[in-house]
């Protein structure tokens, strides 16, 4: 599998990563190599095999619907780069 520059740019946009022309080239080359390695999977027949999403098969635990909370606003906001009057502040969102 070889990945072209167009695809690399699209994936970078989806992943919200910048990619300079040199990086696009490097990504295209490296990802192509990695994906070629991955194509060995195609030689293994897997029809009817149940996909495995979890390492162990346990039931999902469910907790009681109980409020368990203390106001942590200051502690959490303290981790942010930019806050304003109790809010996380971001560049203007244009709808």
């Amino acid at each position, binding site marked *: 599998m070889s*990945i072209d520059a167009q*695809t*690399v740019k699209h*994936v*970078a946009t*989806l*992943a*919200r*990563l*910048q990619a300079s022309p040199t990086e696009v080239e490097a*990504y295209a080359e*490296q*990802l192509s*190599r*990695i*994906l070629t*390695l*991955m*194509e*060995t*999977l*195609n030689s*293994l027949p*897997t029809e009817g*095999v*149940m*996909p*495995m*999403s*979890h*390492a*162990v098969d*346990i039931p*999902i*635990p469910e*907790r009681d619907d109980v409020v368990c909370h203390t106001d*942590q606003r200051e*502690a*959490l906001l*303290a*981790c*942010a*780069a*930019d806050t304003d009057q109790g809010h*996380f502040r*971001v*560049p*203007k*969102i*244009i709808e």
Partner: protein
Amino acid sequence: MDLSHISLTDAAELLRSRSLSAVELTRHFLNRIETTDPTLNAFITVDAAGALAAAEAADLRLAQGQATPLTGIPLAIKDLFCTQGLRTTCASKMLQHFVPPYESTVTRRLKAAGAVVLGKTNMDEFAMGSSNETSFFGPVRNPWDHDRTPGGSSGGSAAATAAGLCLAAIGTDTGGSIRQPAALTGTTGLKPTYGRVSRYGMIAFASSLDQAGPMTRSVADAATLLQAMAGHDPLDSTSIDAPVPDYQSGLTTSMRGMRIGIPAEYFADGLADSVRRGVEQAMETFRSLGAQCLSLSLPSTAYAIPTYYIIAPAEASSNLARYDGIRFGHRCADPQDLQEMYARSRSEGFGAEVKRRIMLGTYVLSSGYYDAYYRKAQKVRRLIADDFQSAFTQVDLLLTPTTPETAFRIGEKNSDPVQMYLSDIFTINVNLAGLPGLSLPCGFDENNLPVGVQLIGRPLQEATLLAAGHAFQQVTDWHLRRPS
């Protein structure tokens, strides 16, 4: 007595008998770190004040006779466990200044048992790497040869343990990140069954594979640490709700009649002679202890690398989406708009390998490729797990090399991601199947570099692994050798 390489059990005994105070022991390691770590770079953050305060509290507890086997024991913690009030970086510029307002379950339990946290150890950035070279804080050096890597991603924990900068350390293992560095540094590393140890507060790399475990200088020490770490956690929905056995008392289980499987696929071309020799010698040792070694086949072994390098990056690409520069972590300066804030914050905050894996994971999940890559990998994952399951109908344990070769030179593989990925070839299957795996030192190569052997067990059979490992260490001294 050389406190630096003392066992956890001996240290606990000295503390209990009051012939040594926790503060003295802690000071000893803080001094060791101060003198040795500038070379090794095993620590990202050393918390001398916090450690001494914890040691004082431990001494009080010891004086009151309320000590646990971990009270006053100085540990090093991989820098992806969130520690309340203590910087937790994941070895990334992204989290360079992140101080969590909450505590991981693992560190909470260790602290509750009275353990002293010396500091946070270096690692591959976001645990993505096998050589510790992807750390924003620079590579860790292998105590056996400073030009070589200690492996990764828990390289700092491994190096600190091997060099005697702590009594023991905690690491995490997504594709071999405890066992591979343990093998490369001559230490003992256990990756428990997925779900045995809580992942709460452990910064995620690949959620369905990540598992925390002890990195120690002996199996007995690993048993003590696992005892404190393991157990159900209501804060982790993938945590297994099963009783935790007494690992210490299980250590003396005899090897007589134990059936050990030797999977042929792990001894193919590409295995270094020195490693092969060490592992075969280990087999002999187990035979001499009364175990039976049977050769068998795990036919899907060859598919592990591609499977893992689809699933792990896919999960990682999603797990790392939260680093958006808004609530925590690096934010670029003066972004012009929202999209620029995202792209620049993330591109500046993440290193090359992390970005590569995010790109890869995003690609394999994206529209049109999901079935061909991600779903296919999940199916192969099932086949790999089934291989193990059927092997365990014939044997109690599997024995393999931990790594194909001994410690490689810093810089040797980091230009080629595929070469680097191949160094995990013997460990990642175990994560895909969710099984427990233990790496033990089993010899040295011609350059006096440690060789590791891996034991793989049935789900939740850590006790069996520990018993086998302990029996091995009772008749060998590889684990007692130390770097000069």
